[in-house]
């Protein structure tokens, strides 16, 4: 692909690749601003810039990830997604075949999710000014009446649920990027969670918190919530699902699965009496097949997440400041 300032080449690119894979009635309106019938309820809006290396990885690619990530951000507000937008920043020279693969994957993810890309934009930057392709997706959705999700609703005694095994995405990306071949291929868990969330919200409208433990993993998500609410959390390590191959990869890499990113998991915090109902709803979906109750909210120590370890000790689940510098040695 060559660097263009709009014009005919760009129009052809959009038509041949994006419109072909992402076609839907909203996008086909051909407007810069697409009109959507929102029905009643509050509007939820989100946006996410996706930069990832490698662009293709076991279990997905940047295209499907861009769709899932934004749908999940809407879902975590309890919203029913209506539409997405997508903006592509493409580095000059990026292979068209790869772009086609990404757009196709996006189209597939949208169709599976039942949520269209309503409008989009494409820019090409000079060689060396990008890293293949960046995708920014925004999403709009509607939050049903009676749903009010947020950390200020956290109370001591509430149950902490997790929709399935952690660490798959981060390890899949890392092993692909660094060429680390573990015995079994570890696949990203990238998936759209909004359908499962819709059923969860329908079953228990009073869910206190939904979060997708993406960057920083489960520990960052829970520490952030504990800090925001001024409460503590108590986890049970044995209850937290981790695939054996992910656990052993983490062991070698010296990483804690609790700190590793996920792209198709959610944490749900709810009243204790709703926990079993929600677990049943989650387990009825393929994305929540291995859902588990992993702990509960405590009065304190405020802002700390503690965990009963597999050998029965109590450890503080830490929140690392990004760099992942070892503290102890």
């Amino acid at each position, binding site marked *: 692909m060559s660097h263009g300032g709009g014009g005919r080449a760009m129009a052809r690119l959009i038509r041949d690749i994006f419109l072909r894979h992402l076609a839907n009635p909203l996008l086909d309106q051909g407007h810069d601003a697409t009109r959507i019938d929102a029905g009643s309820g509050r509007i939820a809006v989100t946006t996410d810039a996706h930069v990832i290396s490698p662009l293709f990885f076991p279990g997905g690619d940047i295209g499907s990830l861009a769709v899932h990530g934004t749908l999940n951000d809407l879902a975590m507000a309890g919203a029913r997604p209506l539409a997405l937008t997508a903006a592509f920043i493409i580095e000059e020279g990026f292979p068209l075949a790869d772009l086609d693969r990404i757009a196709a994957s996006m189209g597939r993810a949208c169709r599976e999710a039942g949520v269209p890309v309503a409008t989009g934009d494409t820019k090409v930057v000079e060689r060396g000014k990008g890293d293949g392709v960046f995708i920014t997706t925004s999403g709009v959705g509607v939050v049903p009446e009676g749903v009010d999700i947020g950390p200020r609703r956290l109370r001591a005694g509430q149950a902490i649920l997790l929709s399935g095994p952690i660490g798959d995405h981060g390890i899949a990306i*890392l092993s692909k990027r*660094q*060429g*680390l*071949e*573990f015995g079994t291929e570890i696949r990203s868990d990238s998936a759209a969670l909004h359908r499962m969330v819709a059923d969860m919200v329908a079953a228990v409208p009073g869910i206190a918190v939904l979060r997708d433990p993406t960057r920083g993993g489960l520990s960052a998500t829970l520490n952030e919530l504990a800090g925001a609410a001024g409460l503590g959390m108590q986890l049970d390590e044995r209850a937290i699902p981790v695939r054996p191959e992910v656990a052993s990869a983490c*062991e*070698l*890499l*010296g*990483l804690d699965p609790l700190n590793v990113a996920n792209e198709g998991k959610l944490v749900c915090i709810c009243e204790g009496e709703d926990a079993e109902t929600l677990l049943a709803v989650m387990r009825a979906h393929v994305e929540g097949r291995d859902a588990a109750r992993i702990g509960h909210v405590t009065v304190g*120590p405020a802002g*700390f997440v*503690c*965990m009963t370890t597999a*050998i*029965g*000790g*109590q*450890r*503080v689940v*830490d929140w*690392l*400041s990004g*760099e*992942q*510098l*070892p*503290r*102890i*040695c």
Partner: protein
Amino acid sequence: MTAADAWVGRRIRVRGLVQGVGFRPHVWRLAQALNLAGSVANDGEGVVIHVWGDAATLDGFQARLWREAPPLARVDGMEAAPHDGPAPGGFTITASAAGRVRTGVVPDAATCPACQAELFDPADRRHGYAFGNCTHCGPRLSIVSAIPYDRANTAMAAFPMCPACAAEYADPADRRFHAQPTACPACGPRLWLEPAPDAGTDPLDAAAALLRAGGIVALKGIGGFHLACDAANAGAVMELRRRKARDAKPFALMARSVEEVGRYCRLDAAARDLLTSPAAPIVLLPRRPDGAPLPDGLAPDQDHLGFMLPYTPLHHLLMARLDGPLVMTSGNRSDEPQVTANGDARDRLAGLADAWLMHDRAILNRLDDSVVTTSAGAPVILRRARGYAPVPLPLPSGFEGLPPTLAMGGELKATFCLMREGQAILSQHIGDLEDAAALDDYRAMLRLYRDLFDFTPAVVAVDAHPDYLSTTLGAALARECGARLVRVGHHHAHMAACLADAGIGLAEGGEGAFGLVLDGLGLGADGTLWGGEILQGGYRGVARVGHIAPVALAGGAAAMREPWRNLVAQLRHAFGAAWRDHAGAVLAHLPPGAPVALLERMLETGTNTPPCSSAGRLFDAVAAALGVHPARIGHEAQAAMALEALARPHLGGVQPYPVALGGGDPVVMGWAPMWRALLADLATGESPGRIAARFHLGVAEALVAAVARVGASQGTVVALSGGVLQNAIILGELQSRLRGIGCRPVTHRQVPANDGGLALGQAVLGALMAPTA
């Protein structure tokens, strides 16, 4: 009245640890004996005495005040001035003036000789009673909940004194005058055994029988529970290891007497003094080659044993029923903090103990046993807790008048430090903060110490590492108190801790000194991980003038647990991708099935392999090369300690390995020549002990050569700090070699060289770095 006409008055000020230790009754008794008149009182600065008598008697009085001071007192200074006014009739103890007095709290102290004598005197009313104590001994910090230090603010509040105890408590002539935890069988704590023995069986007899039969007994002590078993019973020792899930960490031992310790270990005068001191620490002692046999499982790979003597009446009564030493290890699972509460002991030690010897005096504050060794006849403290905390450490000159500073310490072996008015109060060893119970203790102790010492910080000093829990807590605390937050470099703090601990004042140690700081890792000033550092400067600031060549930590903290990772990283660093061609026999020491190829790939791609100039990991790598715990270590420094023990007998007969001094500014110590020589030695079948010795000497030689290269000269102060300095060979070799080039090595005295002493350095640096308002 002729005598009284010649009387003069004096005002005597006594400074030091003179409150809560029976100093006023000591003054009173002495004045009574010498027929002096006057009064004695506590005040904000210590003890003040107004006394009248003839000049010669007063001189004698002063001399004896000092010489015969009570066992727990520490007299730092005494000044006398003439005092006008008429002599009162008699000598009185004046009640403390409310408000200004800072009685503080003294450390827990081992049962004194007088109380021991009572314990075994059938005529005494405390004969056989497990909880007797007096002004000179007994629990202190472990039972206090608030100031002032009165019985009502201790765990003894639950035990109202009987008339006999109350009379002793009120009598200045009695050894128990104002002894807050005093007790007797009529009014004090009770002892029992669970499960209960047959009716009528004494709980101590039953516990002793169980121990003799190879059982494991949980024993409630001063600062926490212990797990005890017969140290001579190999089966019991192995069973205790199995139940504790503790494969190799040495067990502490308790012997009845110094003489009994001497049957197993070599003792010098310093070690004897330590064993019998009121602090009664665990003393690490070299095993006697001809010593009485003990099971190998007590301290695998170690040439030292850790012994302590009984320090409570309960210990004395139990040991008197046995005929050999007991294992006395902390009552916990694996590496958790020891339990302190009866309920926790029942729950957490279920399955570990066969019986529980418990009592109803609560342990309010956990205090682990302190661990001390000796070097060249002087004590070297390895873990500072029971018996030492919270004794204030006097700081050298130059630290007066600085803002009150709270230093939060490190992450492992955490302690914190309150610094004020030229004194530093270092908390007891609390443990690894990632352990939730230790973190709880840390927060509770912080509250307690701030209350006991009425302390509000103007400065909070934390480590530069953003992810230490102590850093997070310190930042929050600084916000709460409106204090300044100061981030202190890890190795600078180590160096400053050593300088301050060694009594180097601000004027002398401000700049121009060197620091040799060797540890596992800490965050350096350039944002990378440091751990084998030569720093130049002092309290006012340091420059990194030399360091160990940085080598990848393959898998971050996983490199600490698995020494083989460091071996691969070191060899790959020394020889490049073709390292296997050089490795020879070492390859056989890589653990079977170890994912070496994947680890190499991690190293190639820089996947969680941050470079670190760690000294600790270098020791691990060399240990792994010799087949010493290559796969995994169960406790910190396990491989390095085994390597040290291996090296010790061979130091005399070997040459140091060569080390490359490269770089320039800073000078970088590279280990490729060392590895080449080591691998050649292995190839020729040289013994692991001699190789270990050559390595130790090589490290010491390289460090000293590097210090000389960067400008250390005649009289230069070189501070030796960091956890690796707990290696006695390295410490000793560095000291003698530094003296050999005319330098003046200084070492830790009162605080550990490892991160347990870090807070002291953070405190002095934090106070200096915070601009005065």
